[in-house]
């Protein structure tokens, strides 16, 4: 139990440490490919909420008094942008963790969890608008 918690903490620390690294992705090897492929699958799934956020942003901005039925609130757009940047940073970190030779699956699972947890606020924001 303690070792699992330690592995998760180490993964999160590593993910945060590497999160700012935005260089080209490390080439997959036979040791890292399986886990990198899982992170890639999670990134592809993230396209779904991100596509909705982009569609919302493309609406004309809401004005006072309201003149357009389908508009986007500037405050909501800002929240979506902040949430997306947090998710993108977390996915970058997760891919870096998965690219580390010898990394455990639990460390990658924890790093993916950091990214999917970061999607939470974005989901909340998206579900609030029609």
């Amino acid at each position: 139990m303690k070792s699992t918690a330690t592995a998760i903490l180490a993964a999160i620390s590593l993910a945060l440490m590497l999160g700012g690294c935005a260089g080209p992705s490390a080439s997959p090897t036979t040791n890292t490919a399986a886990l990198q492929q899982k992170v890639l699958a999670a990134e592809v799934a993230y396209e779904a909420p991100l596509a909705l956020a982009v569609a919302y942003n493309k609406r004309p901005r809401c004005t006072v008094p309201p003149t357009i039925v389908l508009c986007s609130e500037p405050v909501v757009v800002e929240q979506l942008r902040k949430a997306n940047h947090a998710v993108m940073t977390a996915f970058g970190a997760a891919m870096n963790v998965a690219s580390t030779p010898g990394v455990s699956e639990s460390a990658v699972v924890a790093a993916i969890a950091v990214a999917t947890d970061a999607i939470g606020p974005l989901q909340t924001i998206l579900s609030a608008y029609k």
Partner: protein
Amino acid sequence: MLSLLPLAMEILAYMPQAIKLGIDLTDTAGRAVALFNAPAPATQDELAALKSAIDAEKAKLAAMTAELDQDPPTS
């Protein structure tokens, strides 16, 4: 152990809104599930294909982020 269920649920959760907005998520869902279920790449060709897919996805998400970060034109 990584599970496919949260991934599938995540995409399904957006389907009603996507349909309303006219966005088709079936391709996204199909690609995510296929990747998740695919066997780990083992040959040099498969590893190179994975590297290309990782880089392509990174570029796609970066382009979508740029779209999100750009204000719509005012009329």
